[in-house]
């Protein structure tokens, strides 16, 4: 074997990207007839649309057509979504707008400049309605209702009881509880959404190029909305996507919109979202209120948890929501051995933009209250936070560990990884430094967080949004399928076709590494095709790039597809050499007899025979070499009657320690050092791995300190540009030390788990814990993010007041 899996191989993608030869959606040529779209968006958070006058706009030079909500009424069905609430979500607002930035009309013109000129001429008359902004306000009796036919603002509500929660709370020595708010924030890939849609009336066929990366279950949703057979909607994903971190899954309404516009106006339609549109109306994470209660023994052991989680999915619940609530369902108790769990989960709707996938999806919202409360438990019991964590971590001997809610943590050694984090960060030493510093008026703090990082989502988890009775009425869902195709052409060259629609994660490189190893060919000779075409690629509903599923699932499909090719080559060689397949070995492009290496047959020739000389093949063998493998993991079962669900395939572990200094005068938080230990099983390419971790961490730090999609109390959107939506830049990133432990997953052939999301989940709470630790002398409660200086200064001021005026 060439042994390239697990090596820090450099990336095959890089050369084209470094020389400006990448092919992103906006780089693909278009036909001369193509019209360019601009989208008219609501300036109101909540209003009836009284009228839209497009006459003057239609007369503007270069305008090809304008489509409003009224024009698509009846032509599209509402997008389906996995909840019972009859929410009607269309690609353009009809009758009513429900958030600032909601699309109301699409203008197609000869270029984007002309389209924007026309947009300014459209006159809209609104009748304003009271806006709904606050999460808990949404549940109040007299709250404004967004969707009259739903009757309330609740899109989904489920309650879950695992173990004996009441007993745990009755027997607890103490109950530690608090309410935490997690803000709405997003991921802002530097490349925005882009769609080129062409409707072909002769075949009633929509062909759409878009930087959409799945999950491809959404293909079905789009076809249903368009009311067409699904093979009439062909989606082609370009080779290069300029980042997504989940956000681009939210492009689907625009795919349908541009498709419809192409049909109604009669030309191909290209739309490249601009940054203002992206910030106000693409997709984001949910903002969430969590009431968390922990039943605690005086020893520090947590015996039960109650969480009431209210997730704000924005103005319309849309697929894959309410998945943010359930994506982490199996790992709701995080890294801790807690078998009594009560969850009261709400997805509610307010006049903010609709949410969707985002790096860490649901994890940061879950771990913020969970890891904060663990620190509060320590405070309450006067224990060291590290000791409370130690007391509660799942023990090595417990693996595979069954969680309260139905998950199976496949492998890990949490204690070892956690201790490694503390040792790397010199925890005890820092505690001493902190004490010293305090004497000199300096404010230092240390934050800890331990989280379980799920990867490879089980398509069945989303159905826990329904009750077991409701589920019984529909098709059961399970699995975590992914497909890959490995083929060899007549001259023995290898092509690999993947359906994981990468957006920077280096799938081409890792796919080439895997196939190179399995087929014993140099990596440079393997061509990987990352473009996905729903009409010609092998794909399934789960295909795509999200939930860190490449390492666990995508790689497995590639591995097995390559093995199918390998098996066929072995069969051919065995037949030609007149030996048994079991006696053969493969190395450096040559298949040889193990105990007689001179007796050999080249891979190239074996492949050649399959094309040039098929009658020479063993009896019954098909000509050609073209093997597709659909992989799924058995552990991705549908939920059972008790709502037990193993929501992901593999579970990694992250232990973080972060140290901060707070300026006592300005309340600015400076991160001194960030230490993170990951156990992601077997690492497929350490170079790529650390890059993924750094990226996820930077995003997590953004969530901790800078990023928020903010609305004022009237529902007006406040962060419509990069001057106000603050993404961390290089100077904001602290020193980071990454360490790895390796507990290979027993479930996947390569033993790998996902790892690009862990720190996005952990960093917000790790930093919050550090700030809370730093300000412990003032007894300040950190229950809100981001930790901007203005927020911390206010808390410090209030605390000092409390101290001075008893």
């Amino acid at each position, binding site marked *: 074997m060439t042994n390239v899996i697990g090596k820090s191989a450099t990336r095959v993608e890089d050369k084209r990207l470094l020389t400006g030869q990448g092919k992103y959606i906006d780089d693909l040529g278009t036909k001369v007839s193509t019209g360019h779209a601009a989208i008219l968006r609501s300036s109101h958070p909540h209003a009836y649309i009284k009228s839209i006058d497009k006459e003057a706009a239609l007369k503007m030079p270069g305008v090809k057509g304008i489509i409003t909500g009224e024009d698509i009424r009846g032509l599209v069905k509402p997008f389906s979504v996995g909840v019972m609430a009859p929410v009607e979500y269309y690609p353009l607002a009809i009758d009513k707008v429900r958030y600032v930035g909601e699309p109301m009309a699409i203008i197609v013109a000869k270029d*984007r*400049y002309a389209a*924007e*000129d026309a947009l*300014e001429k459209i006159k809209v008359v609104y009748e304003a309605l009271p806006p709904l902004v606050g999460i808990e306000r949404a549940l109040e009796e007299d709250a404004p209702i967004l969707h009259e036919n739903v009757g309330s603002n609740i899109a989904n509500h489920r309650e879950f009881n695992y173990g004996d929660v009441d007993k745990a709370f009755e027997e607890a020595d103490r109950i530690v509880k608090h309410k935490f708010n997690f803000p709405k924030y997003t991921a802002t890939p530097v490349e925005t959404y882009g769609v080129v849609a062409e409707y072909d009336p002769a075949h009633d066929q929509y062909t759409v190029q878009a930087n959409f990366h799945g999950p491809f279950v959404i293909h079905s949703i789009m076809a249903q909305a368009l009311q067409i057979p699904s093979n009439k909607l062909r989606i082609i994903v370009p080779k290069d996507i300029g980042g997504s971190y989940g956000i681009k899954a939210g492009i689907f309404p625009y795919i349908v919109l541009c498709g419809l516009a192409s049909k109604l106006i009669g030309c191909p339609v290209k739309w490249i979202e*601009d*940054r*203002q549109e992206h910030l106000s109306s693409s997709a984001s994470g949910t903002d969430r209120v969590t009431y968390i209660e922990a039943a605690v023994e005086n020893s520090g052991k947590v015996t039960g948890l109650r969480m009431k989680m209210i997730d704000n999915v924005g103005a319309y619940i849309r697929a894959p929501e309410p998945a943010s609530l359930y994506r982490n369902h199996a790992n709701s108790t995080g890294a801790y051995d807690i078998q009594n769990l009560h969850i009261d989960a709400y997805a509610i709707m307010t006049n903010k933009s609709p949410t969707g996938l985002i790096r860490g999806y649901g994890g940061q919202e879950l771990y913020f209250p969970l890891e904060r409360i663990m620190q509060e438990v320590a405070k309450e019991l006067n224990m060291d936070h590290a000791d409370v964590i130690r007391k509660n971590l799942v023990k090595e001997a417990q693996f595979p560990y069954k969680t309260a809610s139905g998950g199976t943590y496949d492998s890990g050694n949490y204690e070892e990884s956690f201790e490694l984090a503390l040792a790397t960060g010199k925890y005890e030493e820092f505690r001493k430094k902190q004490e010293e510093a305090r004497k000199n008026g300096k404010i230092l703090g240390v934050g800890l967080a331990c989280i379980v990082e799920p990867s490879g989502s089980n398509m069945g988890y989303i159905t826990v949004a329904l009750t077991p009775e409701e589920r019984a009425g529909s098709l059961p869902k399970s699995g975590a399928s992914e497909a890959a195709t490995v083929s060899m052409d007549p001259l023995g060259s290898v092509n690999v076709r993947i359906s994981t629609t990468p957006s920077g994660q280096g799938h081409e490189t890792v796919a080439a590494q895997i196939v190179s190893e399995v087929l014993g060919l140099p990596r440079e000779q393997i061509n990987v095709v990352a473009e996905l075409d729903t009409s010609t690629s092998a794909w399934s509903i789960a295909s795509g790039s999200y939930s860190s599923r490449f390492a666990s699932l995508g790689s497995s499909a590639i591995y097995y597809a390559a093995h199918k090719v390998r098996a066929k080559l072995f069969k051919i060689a065995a037949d030609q050499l007149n030996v048994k397949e079991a006696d053969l070995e493969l190395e450096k492009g040559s298949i040889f007899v193990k105990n007689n290496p001179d007796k050999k047959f080249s891979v190239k020739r074996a492949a050649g025979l399959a094309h040039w000389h098929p009658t020479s093949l063993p009896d019954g063998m098909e000509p050609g070499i073209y093997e597709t493998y659909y992989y799924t993991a058995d552990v991705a079962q549908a939920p059972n009657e008790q709502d037990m669900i193993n929501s992901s395939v593999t579970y990694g572990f992250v232990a973080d320690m972060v140290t901060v200094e707070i300026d006592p*005068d*300005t*309340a*600015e938080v400076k991160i001194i050092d960030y230490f993170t230990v990951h156990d992601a099983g077997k690492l497929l390419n350490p170079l790529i791995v650390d890059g993924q971790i750094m990226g996820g961490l930077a995003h997590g730090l953004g969530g901790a300190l*800078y990023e928020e999609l*903010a609305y004022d109390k009237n529902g007006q959107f*406040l*962060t419509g*540009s990069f*001057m*106000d939506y*603050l993404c*961390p*830049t290089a*100077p*904001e990133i602290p020193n980071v030390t990454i360490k790895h432990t390796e507990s290979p997953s027993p479930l996947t052939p390569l033993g790998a788990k996902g790892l690009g999301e862990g720190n996005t989940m952990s960093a917000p709470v790790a930093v919050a814990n550090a700030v809370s630790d730093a300000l412990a002398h003032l007894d300040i409660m950190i229950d809100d993010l981001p930790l*901007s*200086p*203005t927020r911390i*200064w*206010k808390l410090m001021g209030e605390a000092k007041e409390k101290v001075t005026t008893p």
Partner: protein
Amino acid sequence: MKPPKFEYYKPATLEEALNLLEEAGDDGKIIAGGQSLVPIMNMRLASPKCLIDINGLEELSYIKNEDNTLKIGTLTRQSDVEQSEMVANVCGLLAEAITQIGHVQTRNRGTIGGSIVHADPSAELPLALLTLNGSVQITSKDEVRTVAAEDFFITYLTTDIMPTEVLTEVTIPLMEEKSGYSFQEVARRHGDFALVAAACHMTVDDEGIITAVRLALGGVEAIPLLIGDAEDILTGEQLSDLLMEQVTESVEMESDPESDLHASSEYRMHLAKVLTKRVLTQAYERARG
């Protein structure tokens, strides 16, 4: 985000530019570095009918030290000032302030004059100019006039310049021997506009007695704010905690910061006081050498 239509002129001389401005009247708009104007045009928050591009006026790009006065042509790129050794030697405050404007790439294009005319209340250059008791030279077809920084800024994004005028030069009287300065700001991220910025310039005699001082703040009012009382309180004295306390009281009296997403009014006020003390302390230390 595409800009609206406009007519475009690129004069080759100042005279030509002034004629064009005269002709265009209220419809005319100068474009210099474009680092403030083009973003708002792309967002269609500004739609000038007629854009007069002064980037061809090479004669307006220079840095000179004449008669102990620093003279900078309006079109001088911020990065040219940043890299000027002469500026670093004779006007440390300006050199320090300039590195905090945006980013290398925006400074490569953004001009000295553009920033001052744009007059963002928390911008660095207007604050530095005010603190250094600088002035601007304004040229129109009819006259060349000089306006002190103190009189130039009128209100939020508004200055004493007419649509037919061009800011041509910025002048700054140079520091005396025993002087010190400080420029400090608190911003959310590196390169962001300051939440609050403070600048101070002072001269001190051999006994440590302050002989002159100017203190100004950005981000606490619609324009950069000179704290006139600082001069009265500190001149003739050595810097002390007590006096600094008095100065911050004046700061509190004179500023009226606004609240926004990134900072509450109270927090800005607090920062104004903190930064006041910091710049006074640093300027004093530097002046004493």
